[in-house]
């Protein structure tokens, strides 16, 4: 029997599989069809300080090898959420990770403190990278200074594991990752969706009510693998890799690139059994190669060869 367990900050999980925020509800929605006990952790939909109605419809559009979404952080606000929703999460047979979003440093700290105080919540994911809400034109995760500020403020409110979700919509994700680490993040979720847009050529209107959206699915997988690879070389804290994972092969790419765990989002929309199937197949993959622990392969992508075909004096 191989060991798939993983430790993310203080969070010890039997399986290295998360479900992406906003993609698996609170787990309950899929419970009639899957065995939630075979998931490492369900990451809940993001909650904000105040209630949000979310974006106008349409909120989803299928695109080649992926989809665009612009839900817009629809949620009842932290007070309602604590009073009505959080209690139910104790019934889940897997760990439940709360997700916090906001529009100011103070928002994040306030919501994070309240949510993290609840026993039903095993850890907090700080969603500083939602592409579908405006914050003076950019998200916190697009600015190293804002990232540092918001992570430091959230860190001060809780000792629970803090996972900071980064945006791919940046020039240098490694520098943002370093800021999050020095500000006290226990782990990094890499990556959120890639900004995108689709236009209906009959009506000339954007196909999303929000005009722009976040691209997910296999279309962004190579972007995500590279982001994990770059972040893994920049920080020492664990990475939860995500972006277009549908199969065990996809998951292994992320582990080899440097992710200690993975998260499945859009893959669940094709088949909600993807997280369980990956666990089953990872066991088989490692057993076949006599590798006792999944953590033995983290970051082991073999990139160490030199390019033998270079001109003399070429430094590339």
């Amino acid at each position: 029997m191989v060991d798939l367990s993983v430790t993310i900050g203080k969070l010890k999980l039997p399986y290295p599989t998360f479900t992406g925020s906003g993609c698996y509800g609170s787990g309950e929605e899929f419970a009639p069809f899957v065995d939630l006990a075979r998931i490492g952790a369900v990451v809940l939909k993001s909650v904000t300080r105040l209630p949000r109605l979310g974006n106008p419809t349409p909120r989803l559009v299928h695109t080649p090898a992926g989809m665009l979404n612009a839900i817009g952080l629809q949620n009842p606000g932290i007070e309602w959420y604590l009073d009505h929703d959080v209690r139910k999460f104790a019934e889940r047979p897997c760990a439940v990770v709360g997700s916090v979003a906001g529009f100011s440093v103070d928002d994040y700290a306030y919501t994070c403190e309240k949510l993290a105080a609840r026993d039903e919540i095993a850890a907090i994911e700080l969603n500083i990278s939602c592409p579908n809400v405006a914050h003076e034109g950019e998200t916190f995760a697009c600015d190293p200074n804002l990232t540092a500020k918001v992570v430091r403020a959230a860190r001060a409110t809780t000792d629970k594991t803090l996972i900071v979700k980064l945006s791919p919509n940046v020039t240098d994700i490694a520098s943002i990752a370093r800021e999050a680490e020095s500000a006290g993040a226990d782990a990094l979720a890499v990556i959120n969706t890639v900004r995108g847009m689709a236009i209906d050529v009959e009506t000339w209107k954007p196909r999303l009510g929000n005009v722009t959206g976040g691209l997910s699915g296999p279309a962004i997988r190579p972007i995500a693998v590279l982001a994990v690879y770059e972040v893994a070389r920049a920080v020492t804290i664990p990475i939860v890799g995500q972006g277009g994972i549908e199969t065990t092969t996809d998951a292994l790419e992320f582990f080899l690139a440097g992710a200690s765990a993975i998260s499945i989002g859009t893959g669940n929309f094709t088949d909600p059994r993807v997280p369980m199937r990956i666990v089953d197949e990872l066991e088989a993959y490692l057993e076949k190669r006599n590798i006792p622990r999944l953590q033995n392969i983290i970051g082991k992508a073999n990139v160490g060869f030199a390019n033998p075909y270079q001109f003399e004096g070429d430094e590339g």
Partner: protein
Amino acid sequence: MLVGFHAPELVRVTRPGHFAMVVPPSGEVAATALGIYEAHGERASILFFEVGKRTRELGTLRIGDKFDVMAPLGNGFTIGGARDVAIVAGGVGIASVLLPAQAARSAGARVRLFYGARTSGLLVERERFAYEGCEVLVATDDGSDGHHGYVTDLLANASDKPDLILACGPTPMLRAVARVASERDVPAQLSLEETFACGVGGCWGCVVPLLRSSAQAPSFPPAELQGSDVVYARICKEGPVFWAHELRW
């Protein structure tokens, strides 16, 4: 294409208007939401036109092939004590209305099927509805069969006023059904179409705006929270069937 499959457990719990998320055999992102056409004994079926990548792929299924469905999902139609039911189907919407037609017939109601399509070749399965004891009235956009025009013209001009309207089809048709239902003062249940991601209420991608004042389905934000006059319901979870007067159209 009509694909029947062996699924006795599914048949037991399927009600009229339920839908299925069909996992594509390979490749495409996201499962496909399809109405459950038949559910009887040990056999259920789905009915679809091979128009997109996913449905074309499903069209390659051959006898003996296996595929995955997540079903039954959604709320379904409610026939209640209606004695004269008008069912309005547009295009592939026909796939969701056989079960309610059967249920209404079993309850002894008169059932008229108002069935519209672009052209006569796309009017599929009408003999089946006639076999079930429905009166079938058709309309085509190109006049190749039945009324030359919209199916809702037929509904508006029908001599006997039904006491319940059930409809499934493209959104412009459903809007027209809602208008006719309101004019003729007949309650109407509309099965809405939308792009789904999860299909089980987990992602809030397929919401429809309802009027807070008339919303019967559970909706967001909860009543205790102050909000706008518009509330959202998930088409996959609280729907796909809504009363016409609930919708903010």
